[in-house]
């Protein structure tokens, strides 16, 4: 459990670092509408996404701090994270989800190709990138679990 406790502390530090980075970026005004990206919508989206992730991280940090102070909560959190059925569900959902996502992106690329070539090539590039990541992951786990 000491190993897990240390892992949680590392996660806590990374989360705090991320939140501090988001606050710094906001204070520096990098997400000011029309400033950094020259587009209000993109600036707003970037700011919203970064703040959303920071908010999720803060809730995780609260959970981690609570677990680090209470051994019973720590054990429950450990069990929840290492439960084999939950891991199997995540693994199956991930592999099936990626296949569906790539198929969906390729279909969208074909449809978008009738109107806009840029969108078509962007979607093809996205599908290619996801497929390459999946291939790299497969190669990694193949070598990890073979002989």
């Amino acid at each position, binding site marked *: 459990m000491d190993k897990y406790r240390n892992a949680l502390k590392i996660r806590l530090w990374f989360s705090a670092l991320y939140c501090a980075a988001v606050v710094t970026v906001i204070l520096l005004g990098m997400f000011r509408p029309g400033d950094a990206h020259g587009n209000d919508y993109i600036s707003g989206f970037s700011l919203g996404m970064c703040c959303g992730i920071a908010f999720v991280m803060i809730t995780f940090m609260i959970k981690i701090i609570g677990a680090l102070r209470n051994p019973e909560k720590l*054990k429950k959190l*450990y*069990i*929840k994270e*290492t*439960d*084999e*059925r*939950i891991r*199997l569900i995540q693994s199956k959902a991930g592999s099936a989800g990626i296949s569906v996502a790539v198929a969906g992106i390729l279909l969208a690329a074909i449809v978008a190709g009738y109107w806009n070539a840029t969108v078509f090539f962007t979607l093809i590039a996205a599908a290619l990138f996801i497929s390459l990541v999946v291939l790299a992951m497969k190669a990694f786990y193949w070598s990890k679990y073979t002989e």
Partner: protein
Amino acid sequence: MKTKIAEYRKQRRISQEELAMAVGVTRQTITSLEVGKYTASLVLAYKIARYFGTTIEDIFDFSDLEEL
């Protein structure tokens, strides 16, 4: 896969939560094992058998296992 986990648990008056905490899984995993919706890994099967002081074959029913 059919199991005798519920049987053993009731005999010893142990709740699903207690068993789950003892073998390091969630209560939902114990429920899934009991109703046969999930098949335990070898490690989990060993932990459950050891917890009840019996063998894996006694708790888990391998009669439905397909032979190749």
